[in-house]
């Protein structure tokens, strides 16, 4: 009887027990986190330096083993590799529920695109809004590289566009097979840059078929870091 009484007292506490899983997004180059504005010297010709990797993570959802879902209250997050706080999200969820999937939109949805000026992560001062033609830049990747044919070796890939036929919004789904308290989702920038052909097109500044292709490649570059 005593045991039952103690169990009755303690069980609701356990049932309501929450835990926090931290998800962080990191750009990687060949398995290592990319430092801000530092040279990644692969060899004499293929050196690369990233000055900006910024992208919108929207409608972030996490699915759990018990069939429930966590939805980000922040509809649109601007993730900037130079700002570690923006790249980390804490998810509080029931203790007994483990994460099975992480899903988000890479970019800003068309309804938001068509709306007026907005603030915080969507504020136009963040440098993620095309001033000459309405629309958010879904992902901005900039830097210099020995691969670029630009006279100053620059590259600037502004992947945007929300209207047919050049809609670069992409959905990303990451399955989680071995959930941990800290999950790192990395962007494989090495394989992404290999798809970019910087020797022939080092600047993308408008919606286009090329932007669509690169958006798909960038979306495919998101992977869960294995233990």
């Amino acid at each position, binding site marked *: 009887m005593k045991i039952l009484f103690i169990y009755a007292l303690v069980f609701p506490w356990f049932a309501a027990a929450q835990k926090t899983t931290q998800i962080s997004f990191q750009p990687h180059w060949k398995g290592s986190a990319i430092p801000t504005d530092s040279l990644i010297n692969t060899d004499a010709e293929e050196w690369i330096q990233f000055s900006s990797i910024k992208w919108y993570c929207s409608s972030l959802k996490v699915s759990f083993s018990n069939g429930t879902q966590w939805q980000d209250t922040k509809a649109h997050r601007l993730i900037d590799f130079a700002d570690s706080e923006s790249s980390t999200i804490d998810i509080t969820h029931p203790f007994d529920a483990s994460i099975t999937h992480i899903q988000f939109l890479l970019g800003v949805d068309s309804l938001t695109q*068509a*709306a*007026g*000026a*907005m*603030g915080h992560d*969507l*504020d*136009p*001062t*963040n*440098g993620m*809004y095309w*001033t*000459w*033609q*309405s629309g958010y830049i879904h992902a901005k990747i900039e830097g210099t590289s020995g691969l670029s044919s630009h006279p100053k070796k620059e590259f600037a890939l502004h992947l945007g566009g929300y209207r047919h036929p*050049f809609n670069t919004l992409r959905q990303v789904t990451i399955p989680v097979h071995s959930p941990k308290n800290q999950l790192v989702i990395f962007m494989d920038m090495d394989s992404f840059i290999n798809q970019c052909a910087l020797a022939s097109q080092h600047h993308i500044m408008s*919606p*286009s078929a090329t932007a669509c292709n690169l958006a798909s490649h960038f979306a495919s570059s998101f992977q869960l870091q294995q233990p």
Partner: protein
Amino acid sequence: MKQLSLFALICLCVAFTDPPAGLVIPKGWPGPTYDESQNILSKKGIALGRKLFFDPILSADSTISCASCHSPYNSFAHTDHALSHGIHDSIGRRNAPALINLAWQQSFMHDGAIHQLDMVPLAPISHPSEMGSDMPSTVQRLRHQSSYKSLFNSAFGTPAITGERTLKAISQFLLTLISANAKYDRVMRGEETYTVQEENGYRIFKIHCASCHTEPLFTNGKFYNTGLPADSFLKDYGRMSISGHSQDSLAFKVPTLRNIAYTYPYMHDGRFKTLSQVIRHYTHGIQHAPNLAEALKNPICLTDDEKVDLTAFLKTLSDTQFLFNPAHQHPE
């Protein structure tokens, strides 16, 4: 009891310090396209927007304001200059359009590049040949200007100066630029009558012009190739640069004809200095193209008298009350 009455009085005063202003929709006009619920107009918001509109602080070297190219006396267009010019005497690529009745527009700029009013200022602020700045720098300059903190506080409830608030304040002022009291409007309301010449001009207008310059806004907001030869220097192909479709080659947005007598020169690149040159283009100057506007595929034939009458009608679209409204001028 006395304390309760005093408290109620204070609440009322606070509530009415900056009541919502709201758009005044002219009778018979369609509902506005702009969603006011996302940017509630208030007297303080409009006042802030007006100050920003006339303040060259928006430009990189603090020499060019919105009003530099959008003059209130010219229906917020730019006369005497075919193309807008900006900092360091740089010349732009387009003629500044009139900023009136913007709440009803579905797209902005001659090529419809901008789809929402709030976002329009980003283009001139960032253009190297206009204000030559960028939004973050502009917001920084505003933050360092002591007068703006209190103005943003009054308008938005807190002193934070952000890109969002800057753009929304400018929108609030722009939304008040409603021109709907020209002679044409007074005739439509039964308050005045046309002269014989103006009446005939209106008849000609309805036959040849109204399919694109649709009443009461005098634009249907669509894009057409109106037979203007491409400028070999500017190489401006209009809507095609936005849509990517060849059928939009040399297509530009139908401008409003309201206050047209005050918004010369005309067309997207200001190539015509007078209304008679515009009318002559439509009667004699159309360059045929596969995507020429349907309404222009048959020649428009007007006698000299009809051209004069048409011009007389177009002048009835001048709203001098709007043009000389002190509320639209420099705030100081």
